[in-house]
């Protein structure tokens, strides 16, 4: 049960990390488009 809890928390963390990373990249791409 503990393992399952840990794997769930890893899934949530991975999603948060991944989506945040996508947002940052999105912002940088938006900057590139608007400044160049």
């Amino acid at each position, binding site marked *: 049960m503990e393992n399952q*809890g840990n794997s769930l928390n890893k899934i*949530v*963390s991975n999603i*948060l*990390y991944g*989506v945040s*990373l996508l*947002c940052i990249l999105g912002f*940088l791409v938006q900057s590139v488009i608007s*400044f160049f």
Partner: protein
Amino acid sequence: MMDLCWTILGGLTGIIAIFLWKLSKKYQKDLLFWPGLIHGLVLMLFSIAWATGAVLEGVPRSASMGLLLFGFSGIIITTICFKNILSNPIENGLLKDCVLKDGVQNKETKKTQIFERLPETEINASKKPILDKKPSLLFKFVPYIAYASLLGAYILGMTQNIADYESMVMEKYKGRVLTKIKDDPIVFELAPNGSEANSSEIGEYIVISKGQGYGGPFVIGVHIGEDAKIRRVMLLDNRETPAFVKKVENAKFPEQFMGKNVVDDFIPGEDIDIVSGATISTRAATQAIREAAHISATNYFKLKQSWKKEPWVFGLEEILVLVLFGLAFVKQVYAKKPWKYVYMAATIGIVGFYLNSAISIGSLAGLAMGFIPDFKTHMIWWVLVVGTVLTIFIKGSNVYCYRICPFYGIGFVLNKISGQKFSPSKGVLNYAKPVSNFLLWLALMIIFLSSHPAAGAFEPFAMVFSLNGDGVHWFLLPLVLVGSFFISLFWCRFFCPCGHGLSTLLKFRKKTITLIQRNK
């Protein structure tokens, strides 16, 4: 599109209703748990509906605020409810029921384990250097390629990005005779309508001057009439964060200069109104206009200097920042309880919400590009940015990260509220360090190539502390706050380009000292 969103939301509501109904069958006795859980889940659903509607209407700021105010509150309430159940299993009957049934725990209990703490060993493991593997020979050269490309971008940006302000002004005055009479700063004489250039009549002047803002120069063209009064103020170029410039423009800041005499004082806070929330941009623009007006007063209208000199800006705000910066060197204050919390609250309140002066990668890159504001009027910038960098080079310690940084404080408080220590999987952790270095490199490349410090500064600091943001940035804010709620030091460990930049400077110093000592 909207129909699809409502269908998805309806589906989600149905799933949650079934989930609650199943739970209610087994755990009816707990009275406090239910209102909290339902409230939290309803808030989360409402925030999704709000954000979807706002995005479809093209208002990302509203979407972000909805997710933060309602969605994040929902997550906090739901988490506290689950925590309460887990900490009192027998009283609430939740775990007791599960264990009693054939010694096997049911599905609902497993779901609640999402909120369990990580084992201590794993928490400690997360503090260790993320990338344990030895880099291959190819990867050894990657940092040098990165440094070389950054140097190339820096040189290219500084030499190529010189805007043609003369053409910009000529474009705005098509059909009039403009004669350039000075190079530094650029001054045009504008012949009266219908007359030729260089006629004996005193014409009008257009002066192009610069004021130093937070991100770089604020270039302004000032049109002065033959009566020595300002006729027009043109914002030609700036390197400020777009949200701040928008504030200046929306407040119709340039309009207040119309009709002002060139011998006026032009001092923000006295005869010039400061735009609330964009103080530094306002000061930069005023500095440029003042310089243009006073140059034309003495050089072309032959008027005597009767204006006040720009006073030093030194008040309560500067004193508070100096005190906070000084205390960042006192371990008893920034590291020991209870003063640690007092200090953290002060940095969040003063450096964050009150002054909105958190250092970003844009500040560091601006310093490297020579965009340095006046010490007399921007002492806070000097203390925080120059002070931090000098401390790294002189003392070899980073006093900003985990001490003065208000965003660290916000993340710390959020994580304390949840009490959770979630961590991404090992696969993600292995790539986290190279990814954060790549983000730092990419941000610097964009800044150097565009010569625009705000272009690559992706930190959501300004949004947290003054609700200023642009486009995709709005979605990053709720994500980072929710991430910090569950994952300790989420922003600092995985993304912060400013923190990684300061760490790189520290490493650079250490390597240089080692190299010098070896050669001795």
